[in-house]
């Protein structure tokens, strides 16, 4: 997937200003940056949830805008931060929605197998028949990820998946992201607030400031004293844990 010269204005203010980058296949890419940098907007445009003002997104040698929405749903899954469902849905019913692009409302045997697998992968078997509004935040997030897995897409886009989760659930979530990439071979694109999760769990990092790309590169290229100080306007110390740079700030 290649993004070329993406632009978006809200009320005359440019929130995304000629952003171009390439998404490496089969890797985890994190979008980081201060508040209002345009991370979620870029993600929204990649996932077709937000209409872009100009620019082109090439997806598998075809303009993303020319893809049929239903076909795209088999290639690209997005999970946003706001998921409030008023319906009484069980975990299994929610995960089953992941099969909607393939079979509509009627599930085939193959669909049910995929749903079982997705539920097992997220270790949700014991909650399968619980209603999602009765689950804790961490479990609910896992149920949504299971739905994304059932959707069986090559690309997975997650908008602040660690938001509102405590450290335990957030780090579990990030390990799951890593597994999605390493075990299932998916390309994962994340929007993250927490720099160290981006540093520790992703392959590439794209830092945005004021709607522009400040730095795009491997973790080592982006997560260092100078670059981070420039992006966040705060002094950073970098320490290495397991050979990965982690930032310390206060």
């Amino acid at each position, binding site marked *: 997937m290649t993004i070329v010269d993406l632009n978006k204005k809200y009320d005359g203010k440019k929130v995304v200003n000629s952003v171009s980058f390439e998404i490496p296949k089969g890797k985890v890419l994190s979008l980081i940056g201060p508040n209002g940098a345009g991370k979620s907007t870029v993600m929204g445009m990649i*996932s*077709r*949830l937000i209409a872009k003002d100009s620019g082109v997104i090439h997806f598998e040698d075809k303009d993303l805008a020319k893809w*049929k*929405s*239903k*076909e*795209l*749903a*088999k290639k690209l*899954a*997005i*999970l*946003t931060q*706001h*998921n*409030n*469902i*008023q*319906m*009484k*849905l069980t975990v299994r*019913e929610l995960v089953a*929605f*992941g099969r*909607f*692009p393939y079979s*509509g*409302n009627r599930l085939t045997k193959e669909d049910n197998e995929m749903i079982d697998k997705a539920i097992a992968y997220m270790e949700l078997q014991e909650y399968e028949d619980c209603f999602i*509004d009765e689950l804790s935040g961490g479990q609910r997030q896992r149920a949504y990820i299971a739905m994304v897995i059932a*959707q069986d897409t090559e690309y997975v886009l997650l908008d602040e998946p660690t938001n509102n989760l405590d450290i335990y659930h957030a780090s579990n979530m990030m390990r799951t992201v890593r597994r999605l990439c390493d075990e299932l071979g998916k390309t994962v694109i994340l929007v993250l607030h927490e720099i160290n999760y981006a540093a520790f769990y992703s392959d590439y990092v794209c830092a945005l400031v004021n709607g522009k790309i400040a730095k795009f590169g491997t973790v080592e290229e982006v997560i260092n004293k100078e670059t981070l100080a420039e992006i966040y306007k705060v002094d950073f110390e970098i320490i290495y844990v397991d050979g990965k740079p982690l930032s310390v700030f206060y």
Partner: protein
Amino acid sequence: MNKKIIILLTLVIGVCAAYLFIHSHPENPKLFRYILSLRIPTLVVMMIAAFSISSASLIFQSIINNRIVTPCLLGMNAMYTLVHTAVIFVVGSGSILATNANLSFTVDLIVMSVVATFVYSFMFEKTGNNVLYVLLIGTVLASFFGSIQSTMIRVMDPNEYDALLTTLVADFNNINVEVIYFSLILLVALTIFLWKDLKLLDVITLGKAQAINLGVDYDRTVRRLLLGVVLCIAVATAMVGPISFLGLIIANLARQLLKTHKHNHLILGSALMGMLAIIAGQFVSQHIFSYAVPISTFITIGGGVYFLYLLLFTKGGI
């Protein structure tokens, strides 16, 4: 699930039979036939109204993703009354557009679908589907439409007003049977036209982002469904007048009873429950209270209490 639907269906058939045949004097064939000729159209109208109001409310709630809204709270039936008044106001009660019930209804429907689609899609887009804003603006709109309508009535010729009144204030004891065939055809056509969109309703309730993620053309589907809701409300209002709380009660009762997210079951279930409520209510009002207490009184009292219950005792109402 199917069991509950079958029980509902049996109950509906039961009340229909009770409504038609109790006190129908079968020993006197002439009287019997006369009574049936009065009751059958009323029964059909009640069924049409029940179907329209309950499925419209249910679909509307699913689009807004909130269980305490109904199209009526947003002024849709006020809009119908306004459109109807405005048409007579402009063309005059002597015009064929006013004297021919079917023609007049068609004009109302066309004007209403255009205005409502415009007003409501604009409103949803502007407020980003925020329920509180939608409700607030809807309430203001409802009284706004009401005020315009009453202004028109005041400046109208009294004779015109008299003619208008007979078609304007339909209620259960004064139902509008003239548009019965037209409404039936319209509802069948609408169901066929919206069949594909109705199947997407399950996904629509997951919210805009999820629906798009799953490959649904969200804006188009919602626009089409909204048009269906508007037309259903217009049909119900034209036939039996505004029944604001009924849709709310029925849609919620159906959700509570059927405990499912599948809309094909929900729509069928709520339509049956709506029929049950209206026909049984009419039966009670007619045979037990001898028309002293109109059915709308039951609906308003019951609806009010149930609405308070929903607001106060169910979490996640708003």
